[in-house]
């Protein structure tokens, strides 16, 4: 089944990271550091995944006065998103494995 958005290498990188720890909340800066993505790529991808229902964003539940800082926005995969992301990555990996090097060598590997 096709994904509701383009499964670019950046999207795959983000999904792989989120799938690495599905039970934790993730935030922008942490993902930027972990994946090497740029903000100009990450935030539109968040928006795309959220729109598709693969991830959900929520504001951090903290006492602003105690922590002395505003609440962060957290993201995590939804149950639907986890299943779809794992399946999409698996499909992509299978497709890539099938595209064995031909005359053009490692072009599609």
């Amino acid at each position, binding site marked *: 089944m096709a994904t509701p*958005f*383009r*499964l*670019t*290498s*950046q999207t*795959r*990188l983000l999904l*792989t990271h989120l*799938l*690495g720890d*599905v039970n934790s909340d993730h*935030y*922008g*800066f942490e993902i*930027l550091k972990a*994946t*090497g*993505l*740029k*903000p*100009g*790529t*990450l*935030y*539109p*991808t968040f*928006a*795309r995944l959220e*729109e598709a229902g693969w991830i959900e964003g929520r504001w*951090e539940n903290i006492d602003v006065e105690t922590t*002395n*800082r*505003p*609440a*962060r*926005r957290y993201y995590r995969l939804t149950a639907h998103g*986890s299943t779809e992301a*794992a399946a999409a*990555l*698996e499909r*992509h*990996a299978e497709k*890539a*494995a099938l595209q064995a090097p031909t005359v*053009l*060598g*490692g*072009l*599609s*590997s």
Partner: protein
Amino acid sequence: MTLLAAVLLSVACKLVPGHLRAQYEAEWSAECEAIAMSDGVWSSLRYAGRLVLGAPRTGYVLRTNNRPVFFDVLLMSVTLAVPAMFFVAHSAITGQLLVAFAYSWLCIGLLVVASSAWSAESGLFGGKISASGLIMVLIASVVITSLNLLTDTHNPALDGPIRVLPGSVAAQIGVLLVMLSAWLGPQRVEVARLGLSLMTLGLVIWAAIGVLNTVLVETWGERIFHGVSVPSALAVASGCWLIRREGPALITPKPSQEVVLVS
């Protein structure tokens, strides 16, 4: 959060669509505050700076309803193809059919790269179509340079008081390395990055020589040719540099390295 970080965030937020501005303003300022507390003010400022740099792309992608993030390549290719079409017309009018043919080939190659970038589902240099486009660009640019050096063809874009040869050769080696990185496979990220660095350097050299030639040439006709080349070369150089910065994320990771599935 420092005043400078607040100013940077305000600039970044102005670049995203209005209906999302409040959300990003809250999200990014909270992130900056948290980073300042945990990693220090400089990290927070760096993050705000990166947000500003990425905000035009964020705004563009969100406004255009999730268009692919490869639009940089499309813009770069079109930026180069426009003056190339101008040169096709000039060569055809002056009866230099081989040069006209080579420029046409260059345009087609650039448009192939652009179309593959627009529809790319894998990494930027991981597709056969994109690599084929790069081969066409490389062949065309080598033919154009060779014709200029070895024959008596007059090519106002390459001729002039100072020859743009060092810039064009560096850019061509850069294209060659990017193309080779596609052949060698996604693990050759450094080859692609080196290629992009050389393309950037070559195009900056080209633009600098182009500016000098614009000043030094005597006729307005020739001035126009150099004037057309300079902004294109600079725009493409900045595009190459931006893509180089993205680095590994734009190159298809090997399937075995990229997928970590949860059971």
